[in-house]
C-alpha cells in the first residue's frame, strides 16, 4: 500500500502535512495490538491531530451520516465528525492506528513520546524526508527504511490541475474525486461554502483518515498551491523529467 506516499508537495510548501501511522505484523508484534494501538492514539491527543483513524467500526474522524432526516438537518444540525478523544474511546478492535498533524513541532513532540513509550509497533511518517532527518537528533528516531515518491509518469494530460491534485492526492486510495474537489474549490470561490465545511465534505470520502483537513482548507483558499518551476523540479508534478 502506498496510500499516503504520493501527496503533491514541494519542499518549500508550508510545513503542515505529516501523517504518522503505527502497524503490527502478524505473528511478530501483534500480541497486544488493541492496547498498543489505543495508546498510540491516546498519546497523539495532546498534539491535536487534524484527522485520525483506528480500529473502530464507524470509520475515521470524518464520516458520512446514513440516518439523516429533516429534524437532524434543519433543527439539530449535522454531526459531520467526531472529536479525536471520542474516536479513541471508540477503538475496540486491533488495527492500524493513524494520525495526521498540521505542524512540525507537534510531530516532533509526538515522535519523542512514542520513542520513549517503546510500543514495539512499526511506526512510519509520511512527509518530506528532510523534515524527519532534521529532527532526528531531538526525537531520537532516525529513518530505518524509506519509500521515496518519484512522482507521476504516463499520460499526464489525464490529470487535473494542481489545486485539485493537491486535494485528491491526500486520499491515496483515490476515493476523493477530482470533479468533487473541483466543485468544492468553486463553491469556496463563490462563497457558497466555507473552506472548513468544504474540507469536511471531502474528508468523508477518505476511509483511511489520512486526509489532512487543515492543509485542505489552505488549498481550497488557493493559498500556496504547489506550482511548477520548470527549471528546478518539474518531475514531481505533472510534467516531464528535469532536463
Amino acid at each position, binding site marked *: *500500500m*502506498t*496510500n*499516503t*506516499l*504520493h*501527496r503533491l*508537495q*514541494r519542499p518549500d510548501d508550508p510545513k503542515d502535512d505529516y501523517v504518522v501511522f503505527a*502497524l*503490527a*505484523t502478524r*505473528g511478530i*508484534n501483534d*500480541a497486544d495490538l488493541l492496547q498498543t494501538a489505543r495508546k498510540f492514539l491516546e498519546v497523539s491527543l495532546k498534539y491535536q491531530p487534524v484527522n485520525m483513524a483506528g480500529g473502530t467500526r464507524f470509520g475515521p474522524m470524518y464520516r*458520512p*451520516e446514513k*440516518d*439523516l*432526516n429533516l429534524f437532524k*438537518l434543519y433543527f439539530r444540525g449535522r454531526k459531520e465528525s467526531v472529536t479525536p478523544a471520542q474516536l479513541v474511546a471508540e477503538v475496540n478492535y486491533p488495527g492500524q492506528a493513524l494520525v495526521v498533524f498540521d505542524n512540525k513541532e507537534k510531530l516532533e513532540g509526538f515522535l519523542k513520546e512514542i520513542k520513549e513509550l*517503546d510500543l514495539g509497533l*512499526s*511506526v*512510519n511518517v*509520511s512527509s518530506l*524526508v528532510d523534515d524527519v532527518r532534521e529532527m*532526528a537528533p531531538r526525537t531520537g*528516531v*532516525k*529513518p*530505518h*527504511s*524509506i*519509500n*521515496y*515518491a*518519484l*512522482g*507521476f*509518469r*504516463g499520460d499526464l494530460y489525464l*490529470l487535473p490541475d494542481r489545486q485539485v491534485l493537491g486535494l*485528491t492526492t491526500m486520499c491515496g*486510495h*483515490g*476515493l*476523493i*474525486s*477530482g470533479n*468533487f474537489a473541483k*466543485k*468544492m474549490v468553486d463553491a469556496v470561490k463563490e462563497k457558497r461554502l466555507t473552506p472548513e465545511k468544504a474540507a469536511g*465534505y471531502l474528508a468523508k*470520502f477518505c*476511509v*483511511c483518515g489520512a486526509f489532512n483537513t487543515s492543509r485542505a482548507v489552505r488549498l481550497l483558499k488557493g493559498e500556496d498551491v504547489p506550482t511548477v518551476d520548470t527549471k528546478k523540479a518539474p*518531475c*514531481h508534478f505533472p510534467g516531464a*523529467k528535469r532536463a
Partner: protein
Amino acid sequence: MHINQKKCIGCANCVPVCPMGAIFINDNKLAEINPEVCVECQACYRGMSVENLPKQPTRFFRGVLAFFKLRFQPDPDICPTGAITRDELTWPRSLRRVFSDPLMPHESTGIGGRGTMEVKNNDVTGRVKEGEAGFTVEFGRPGVGVYFREVDRLCRSLVGTPVIFEKENPVTSLMSDTKTGKIRDDVLNEKVLSCILEFKVKVTDMPGILEAIEREANRLDTVVALGIAIRCNADGNDTVRKQLEAMGFDAWRGKINLGLGRHTNPQKLQEAAR
C-alpha cells in the same frame, strides 16, 4: 454499483462524487452508472450521507420549484433518498472491487488495499536490505484508473531485466506466468481504480529499470506513480537519494519507517531466547 431508478430524484449530487466519472444524468433526468467505467470502489455508496426523504413528495416539491425556476439542492455530499445500492458481483467483475475498495482485503495479502506492506514493517521483516531497491509502480493513480491490459503491457516490457515480481502482491497473483509478466486473459479488460506492481532489484540495477519503466509508461493510456523503497544505513542515511537526484528525480517526499518495531509476541521472544 447501481442507482435505483425508482428512488433517485435526479439531484445530480452523486455525479461529481464518482472518482471515475461513471455517473451521469440519463434521458429520464435521473442518475445512472455506466458499468463499463465504474470500478466498484464504493465511494458513492459509502461516502455520501443519506437523508432518507420520501421520493414522491420530494420529486413533487422539486417539480414545483423548477416551475418557478428555483431549485431544491441538498448539501453536496447527500443522497436525499438513499438511491445508491450495491450489486452482487461475480468473477471477473468482483476483481474491480478487490482492487478499488480499500476496505476489501485481498486474498493474496490478507490486508486491505492494493499492495503489500512494502517497507512499512521492514524493521521487523527485513524485506528490503541494504543494497536493494524495492519498486512500487502504482497504475491509475491519482484518480485515472487502469485496465489490466495496460498493466500487462508494462509487466511484459520488463522481461529481460533482473526483475523478480513480489510473490505476495495482488497483481503478481493475477499473472499466468511470473517470468514473462503475462496477466491472465480473463481479467485484461477489467478496470480498477489503481493497482500496484512490486518487485525488488539490486540498487546497481535501479537506473536501467527506471529507464525501462519511464519508456513504457509514456505509451500507456493511464498514469503511474513511482516509488522506490530502500534500507538506510545505521546513521539513517542512504546513497540512493543522491543517485536518484543525479538521474533527475526529486526524491524529497517519502514514507519513512522509523525502526521502532520489534518482536513482542511471547512465542517469538521464547524462540529468540532459545
